[in-house]
């Protein structure tokens, strides 16, 4: 049996009956009820029925406590006006034209004729009126936290024993994820008060990969002091599903690639490894190309240059200017601190190379941005 409580305090009241409560709206709560609990509902604005939807309809529209015995749904609900059903202006207008005023009137209509005229929505309303809709309860459950923690009696100074503990946690947590058909999208690792989040490029529950990811992180960013408290949490998500094609060229294995990129990030820094991306902007160097461009190599950062009438010099090279084309003025994003405002030139130097130089109009300095190649 299902019970529905309707009123300003419905959620809290329903929680006192069952841990599995479906909150239909702020004032309506449905839950499964046993025969021994029925007496406690008396005196409240509530209804008990064999189906959740019937209980909701009765609790919202009938005064006081209502008990609907199985098989008696159509009779009890039949007294309600048609407006008690979930609003559907178009269908309600048709009901009005047909002279349907109560749920009993609607329940009496033949199924096939109603379906052919009003479709699935009309049929659904009729089944509601008859109390014939049975559905499972949809309780709002708190999200499961996949976490393990430990407080040690002694401080761990070395990485190996720490990883041994972490591996044990990972085995347990991934087994729990597997039992729910879930995978991890990120790792939250807390060592004493130092917390770090390790993102994963794809959802996984591969213990070896997760352990390697943590090992790389500990290698590059070791804990500042010996560890006495450890907490590990896996952030759950839907697992990855991949359909491989027969004729698709081989790509790096995601697990292996992530481990490789993790090692390279340790060498060159987190921000120096990735896939290049262009943006919807006019910012030099970051904008999407709108036409063919000559292949270009940057000097990063741009080389400050000394320019005279026919010579250009930087700390790396110098030469005589043979030909120069420009200027092309560009500026933008004046509302940001990293705005730009510059005049660009293409020039041929006596060393035979083609450079792009610019005058930064904000600092009034010349720079060599790179070379066409």
């Amino acid at each position: 049996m299902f019970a529905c409580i309707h009123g300003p305090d419905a959620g809290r009241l329903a929680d006192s009956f069952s841990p599995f409560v479906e909150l239909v709206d702020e004032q309506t709560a449905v839950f499964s009820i046993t025969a021994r609990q029925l007496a406690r509902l008396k005196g409240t604005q509530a209804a008990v029925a064999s189906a959740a939807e019937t209980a909701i309809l009765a609790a919202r529209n009938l005064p006081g406590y209502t008990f609907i015995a199985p098989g008696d749904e159509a009779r009890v609900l039949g007294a309600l006006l048609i407006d008690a059903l979930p609003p559907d202006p178009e269908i309600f207008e048709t009901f009005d034209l047909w002279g349907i005023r109560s749920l009993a009137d609607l329940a009496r209509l033949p199924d096939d004729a109603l379906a052919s005229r009003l479709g699935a929505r009309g049929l659904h309303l009729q089944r509601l009126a008859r109390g014939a809709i049975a559905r499972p309860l949809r309780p709002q459950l708190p999200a499961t936290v996949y976490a393990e923690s430990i407080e040690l009696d002694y401080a761990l100074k070395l990485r190996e024993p720490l990883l041994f503990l972490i591996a044990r946690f990972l085995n347990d947590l991934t087994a729990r994820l597997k039992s729910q058909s879930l995978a991890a999208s990120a790792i939250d690792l807390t060592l004493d008060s130092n917390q770090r989040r390790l993102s994963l490029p794809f959802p996984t529950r591969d213990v070896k990969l997760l352990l390697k990811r943590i090992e790389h992180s500990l290698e590059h960013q070791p804990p500042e002091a010996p560890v006495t408290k450890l907490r590990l949490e896996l952030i759950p998500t839907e697992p990855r599903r991949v359909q491989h094609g027969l004729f698709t060229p081989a790509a790096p294995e995601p697990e292996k690639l992530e481990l490789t990129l993790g090692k390279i990030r340790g060498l060159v820094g987190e921000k120096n490894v990735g896939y290049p991306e262009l943006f919807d902007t006019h910012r030099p160097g970051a904008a999407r190309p709108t036409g063919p461009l000559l292949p270009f190599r940057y000097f990063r950062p741009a080389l400050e240059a000394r320019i005279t009438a026919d010579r250009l010099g930087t700390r790396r090279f110098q030469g005589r200017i043979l030909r120069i084309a420009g200027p092309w003025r560009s500026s933008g994003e004046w509302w940001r601190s990293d705005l730009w405002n510059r005049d660009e030139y293409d020039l041929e130097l006596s060393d035979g190379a083609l450079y792009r130089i610019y005058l930064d109009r904000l600092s009034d300095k010349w720079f060599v941005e790179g070379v066409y190649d």
Partner: protein
Amino acid sequence: MAAALPLPLGWRHAEPLDFLSAAGRDFPRGRISEITGVRSSGRTSVLHALLAVSTGRGEHAALVDTNDAFDPRSAASGGVELSKLVWVRCGGNAEHALRAADLLIQAGGFGVVALDLAEVAAGALNRIPATAWFRFRRAVESTPVILAVLADHPLAKSCSSMTIKLPPRKARFTGCAPFLLLRNAV
């Protein structure tokens, strides 16, 4: 898997590639290929073309950019699929670049691993031991990877199976001074 990766003749910046096709050269897989030349000789054009062909076939490619010189904008305009290109910036550290290239080759699955050592200081290049190139040769020889090394002058010596030395090119401007427009280099 084809034994070599031919470059397209109708590519937009075709001049350095015409030079290649005249020599009848394709990039051999499982080998080291070197692209060398001075500034503006077209070495980056050849590298972009190689990456464009590889990523255009659906392969994944990697670029180890020692001096942080890669321009994604001109590469994208040349047909390189940036979503299939792993870009590693090494901040001028040649040692890190060699280590990163080694790791990428070991990971497998890439069609092209490009190692850009152009404009790297001569002192840093001299510190690369010859054994490093032998190790690279051995690492790629049983794989379909093309290890393309971009440099000012040949570095891998006998370990490389193809060395492309690009001659200097002449800039082509249109218009009359002072209203010139850089068109290309031929």
